């Protein structure tokens, strides 16, 4: 049955090797194979060094709290890693389609601007994956729905991973096409199936 799939045998990452705020910092070196055996229940807030500067910032921005709530790469990763692959009953995180290292948050370009950019590079499971656009769309829709509107969401295919990267990038960057896709019932149902596994 799997013959129909573009990639019937994808590489699957062990869930415990996936980045999580609980165990490790994003910049930590990749976990060794035995690290997965270590119980993963450390106190959450204390372990995450990235959160401290934001706490400082939070204290000074009381009137604009909701809007200015800082968001880091790990949070973005958490939002999209649980999206299901449209072909496999697996998450994009476990397939390595999205990785923490390929998420960047670009702050506003000037003091007047309040617009930040989240850039996610997607690595398709095979170079010919015809579902690349759908996966990209799922990631984009998930972030558009979950993040505050001050974030511009740029989802792109990681360079060199797909023959059709330019074409897919242009589609995913086209606001009008994305908007129209989300009014297309069959596409909406594919995407909502993918997102059903997000909390």
């Amino acid at each position, binding site marked *: 049955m799997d013959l129909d799939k573009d990639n019937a045998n994808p590489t699957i990452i062990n869930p415990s090797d996936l980045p999580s705020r609980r165990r490790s910092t994003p910049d930590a070196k990749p976990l060794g194979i035995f690290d997965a055996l270590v119980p993963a229940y450390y106190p959450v807030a204390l372990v995450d060094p990235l959160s401290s500067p934001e706490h400082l910032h939070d204290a000074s921005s009381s009137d604009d709290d909701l809007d200015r709530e800082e968001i880091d790469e790990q949070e973005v990763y958490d939002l999209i890693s649980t999206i299901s692959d449209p072909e496999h009953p697996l998450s994009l995180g476990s397939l390595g389609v999205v990785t923490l290292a390929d998420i960047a948050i670009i702050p506003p370009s000037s003091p*007047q*601007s*309040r*617009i930040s950019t989240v850039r996610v590079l997607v690595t398709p499971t095979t170079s010919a994956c015809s579902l690349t656009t759908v996966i990209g769309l799922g990631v984009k829709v998930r972030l558009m729905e979950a993040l*505050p*509107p*001050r974030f*511009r969401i740029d989802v792109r295919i990681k360079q060199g991973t797909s023959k059709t990267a330019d074409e897919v990038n242009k589609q995913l960057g086209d606001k009008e096409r994305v*908007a*129209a896709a989300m009014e297309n019932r069959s596409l909406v149902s594919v995407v909502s199936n993918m997102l059903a596994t997000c909390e």
Partner: protein
Amino acid sequence: MPSIKALATLSPPCTTRTWSSTPHPHLPIVATACSDKTARIYSLQNFEQQSTISGGHKRSVRSCAWKPNSRGESVLVTGSFDASAGIWRRWENNAGGGGKAEIDFTGGMAGGEEGEDEDEDEWRFAVILDGHDSEIKCVAFAATSPLLATCSRDKSVWIWEELEDDNFETVAVLQEHEGDVKCVAWHPSEEMLASGSYDDTIRLWREDVDDWACCALLTGHEGTVWWMDFEDVNNIYALDSDSTKTLTETQKTYVQGRMKAGPRLISCSDDMTIRIWKRIPKDKPEVPTGQIKAPSIWKNRDFEEEWVEEARLPQVHERPIYTVSWSKKTGKVVSTGSDGKIVVYEEQWREAKPENDADGDTTMDGATPAPEGEASTTNQSSNQLTEWKAVAVLENGHDVFEINHAVWAPRADKDKRTEDEEVIVSTGDDGEVKVWTLEP
């Protein structure tokens, strides 16, 4: 330095994304295309909603256009993601008498509007235009003939002719674009259509004997062409009237050249540039030998036109630019886009360069027009006499949301300062339509 100042937010706003707002050709109203499948008509006199056009489309209404010269009855076309275009009609209240009531500013403020509220549903559905295979992106009525253009993700541009009321016949299906056609705009005084596309190009179309065909291909943009607008026919004088000084001979020659070439076209793109394109008049058939490769494929020298990039506006936007609008009254340009900025630009006479010794003001013949004579196609500006400056920038025009559209419209509220005053109408992802004045 001028500034852009908030005048009003049209009320009530839409609860979802709004795409564009198109000013009526002579009434003080705009038609706003909404993603909730409706078009809303708002008054620019009191900034309130007059009516809603709903029930005709199954998906987002992406753009609206008004039929020009339709005294007595307003005709609106709505283009939708459901691949159809709808034609809607409504009697203008003042049709019979006066015809002046629409500019009576008291009408919008007091009792006058009350009656209108009851007439909410007087928009009459007239006809649906089917034919496109996928989303219609833009619609436009011709200024000079009873033609309507629609364009779509199906890569085609359709031209419809209104033979008699509500009887539209397809006169052309233009399929040379290699990607979604995002926008169409008619030349203000000639039967010529411009289309901009996802394939990064602009095409100009005219009727050649019996068939519509592409008469010019404008390449240069490095991203989707989101919007275009033609300069007004009379606007070629804008520089002239703007200036209190008398023109130098060089400047006069330049103005004459501009008049001869006719209105220019402005375009904005995903590549974050705004470009101005001009026609090279072809009275002397052999002028441009220099840079143009042998025009071997030119089948009909009279039909093909040569258009070149004349100038690029200063880059202020940091994300894709979704619309650009060229004021028919002042020649100023307004642009907006994904970064939420609204930017106003103005074309000015370039100050004479110090190297050219004497002052531009007084030089009558010293400075020869642009040493590089012929138009270089891709340079910053092929015209050394004028330059574009960003004269006003507003950030976060619709809070943190993207702005999909901005357009000049005549000011119509009671605080209007001069007969010709214009406002900027912006339409955003927040569902709001805002009205702005340009403060000197």
